[in-house]
């Protein structure tokens, strides 16, 4: 009851606030576009041709993502959680319906110069989707410490940046990789007995 009253009140306010917003030099967000407003529909996303017959048949990203766990960048979907909680069930192989992923649970801690926390690379979250040869071949040498990389390289689409910045969560989510406090890392790089 109280809720519907509030709703009514808001509805009465709505036309006033939109006219205000147009001329208001001090809107709450001036430069920042909140995520909800950023993703337009396929018709006005600037990439699709709004004239294409059958555009209505294609799925709107927002509809697809509605039931999925959220994150703060990229698709605004936490794909790792979506997979682990069974919210999505991608087929591991398109050729062999019986094939299942064989995730490997191993962390590689990389020491980071400067003040950012060290990077902990989780093999599991990657091998749930990918095969060893997707990375170990042209991208990464399978040897700890043998893969030197810089943030600049990653931002320009090298190494981690091949996927993180084009299809997987982007590098603006610093803390998902820089997650290992420096002291803790010193002990965890020693081989575990």
């Amino acid at each position, binding site marked *: 009851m109280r809720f519907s009253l509030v709703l009514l009140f808001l509805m009465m306010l709505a036309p006033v606030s939109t006219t205000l917003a147009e001329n208001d030099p001090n809107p709450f967000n001036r430069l920042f576009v909140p995520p909800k407003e950023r993703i337009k529909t396929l018709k006005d996303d*600037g990439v699709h041709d709004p004239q294409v017959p*059958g555009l209505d048949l294609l*799925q709107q990203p927002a509809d697809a993502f509605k039931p999925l766990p959220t994150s703060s960048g990229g698709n605004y979907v936490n794909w790792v959680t979506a997979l682990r909680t069974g919210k999505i069930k991608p087929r*591991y*192989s398109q050729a062999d319906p019986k094939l299942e992923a064989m995730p490997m649970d191993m962390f590689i801690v990389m020491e980071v110069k400067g003040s950012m926390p060290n990077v902990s690379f989780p093999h599991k979250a990657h091998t749930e989707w990918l095969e060893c040869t997707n990375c170990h071949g042209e991208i990464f040498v399978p040897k700890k410490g043998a893969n030197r990389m810089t943030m600049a390289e990653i931002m320009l689409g090298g190494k981690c*940046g091949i996927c993180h*910045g084009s*299809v997987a969560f982007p590098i603006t989510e*610093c803390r998902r990789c820089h997650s290992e406090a420096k002291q803790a890392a010193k002990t965890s790089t020693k081989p575990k007995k």
Partner: protein
Amino acid sequence: MKAITLHFKGNGLIACMAWAITLLILFSSSAQAEYGDVVLNNYSSDAGVRPVIFPHWFHRIRYSCKSCHSELGIVFKAGASKIDMAKIVNGEYCGACHNGVVAWSVENCDLCHSAANDMPTQVHMSTRQILLKGDAK
């Protein structure tokens, strides 16, 4: 915001780049289409058809990366697999699934060829695209 500056203290270059990119990503109002929409236009515009939009996010809900990037030989760079219509009709790349058995077949031209005319090959909203604005790969 303040917290971020603190973390980057001590490394000027990275701090600068990180700021530039954060600002660009957060404030670019021209960025619109979904993250991971891949536009393919090696041949389309030249052949007089609309370029292709491959909704990467849509497919990863249904298939693991390995399905396409190992089994179908699709490489990790937009446009680099040189997918064309002949290969698709032969059952390669998109044609491995869009064959009327696994998913709708190639006769639905407009579902794939849906990009605005002359849209260059790119991964929309990619960090690289945003950093090197104007240079669409």
